C-alpha cells in the first residue's frame, strides 16, 4: 500500500515538475530526465520508462507539444517538448491545488 501511495504521489508530482521545467525552456526527453534527476532527490532514480508515459499523457491532454529538431552531431531527429498555453494554465491550477494540499495536510496532521 505504501509503495502504491508513493507511486501515485510521484506521478502527480512528475506532471507538475515536467510542466514547470518546460516553462523555463523547451527540452528533449533525455534532457528533461537529467534535469529532473539533478534537481530532485525524490526523483534521483527516475527511469525513462516512467517519464515517457507521463509525457504521452501530457501530450494527449494538449498540455505540451513537440517540435522535431535535427541533432547535427548525431544526424538524428529529436522531439523537443514545449509547454502549451493550456499547459501553463494547468500548471497554475496544479500549483494552487498542491499548495492547498500541503497547507491542509500540515494543519490536519499538526506537522
Amino acid at each position: 500500500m505504501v509503495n502504491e501511495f508513493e507511486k501515485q504521489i510521484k506521478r502527480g508530482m512528475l506532471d507538475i515538475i515536467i510542466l514547470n521545467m518546460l516553462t523555463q525552456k523547451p527540452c528533449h526527453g533525455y534532457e528533461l530526465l537529467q534535469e529532473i534527476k539533478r534537481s530532485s532527490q525524490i526523483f534521483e532514480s527516475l527511469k525513462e520508462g516512467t517519464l515517457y508515459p507521463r509525457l504521452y499523457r501530457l501530450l494527449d491532454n494538449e498540455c505540451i507539444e513537440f517540435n522535431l529538431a535535427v541533432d547535427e552531431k548525431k544526424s538524428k531527429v529529436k522531439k523537443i517538448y514545449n509547454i502549451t498555453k493550456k499547459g501553463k494554465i494547468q500548471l497554475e491550477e496544479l500549483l494552487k491545488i498542491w499548495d492547498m494540499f500541503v497547507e491542509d495536510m500540515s494543519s490536519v496532521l499538526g506537522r
Partner: protein
Amino acid sequence: MTEKKYVRNVFKHVMCGGKRKKELYKSFLELVIEKKEEGMDIESIISEMGEPEEVAEEINVYLSEKNLLVNRMILNVYNGCKYANILAFVIVILTFGSMFVKQYKILRFVYEHQDASAYFFASPLMFPVQISGLIVLIILIIALFIIRSVLKRKYMG
C-alpha cells in the same frame, strides 16, 4: 537479452488492444534502439529505462487515465446528443403547433368568405420553410437517436 526482447518483455505486461499497443511498442523500441546506437549495452538500457514490469505498470496507468478521459468525452457527446434531441423535439412540436394554428386560421377565413382560391394558400405549399425545417429536424432527431444508441451499446453496455 536483446533490445527487441526487452521491449517485447515490457509489452507482454501491457494491457491494451492492437493498434495502440503497436504505436507504443514502436515508440519504445525507437527509444531503446537509439540508446543502443549511442553505444549502451542492454544492462545500461534497462537501468535507464527500468525493469520491464515497472515500465509496463507505468504504461498501464497511462492507458487507464487515457481511457478515463475518452469515457468522459463519450459521456459528454452522449449528453450533448440527448439535450440536442430534446431541443429538436420541442422545436418540431412548436413548428407543428404554429403551422396548425395558421392552417386553422386560413381554413376559417376560406369558410367565412367562401373564397375557393384561398384553398391554394391553405395547402402545405404555404409553409415551404417550415416543412423543410421540419424534415431537417426530424432527420436530425433520428441521427442523434442513432448516435446515442450506438454509444450506449458500444461503451455503456
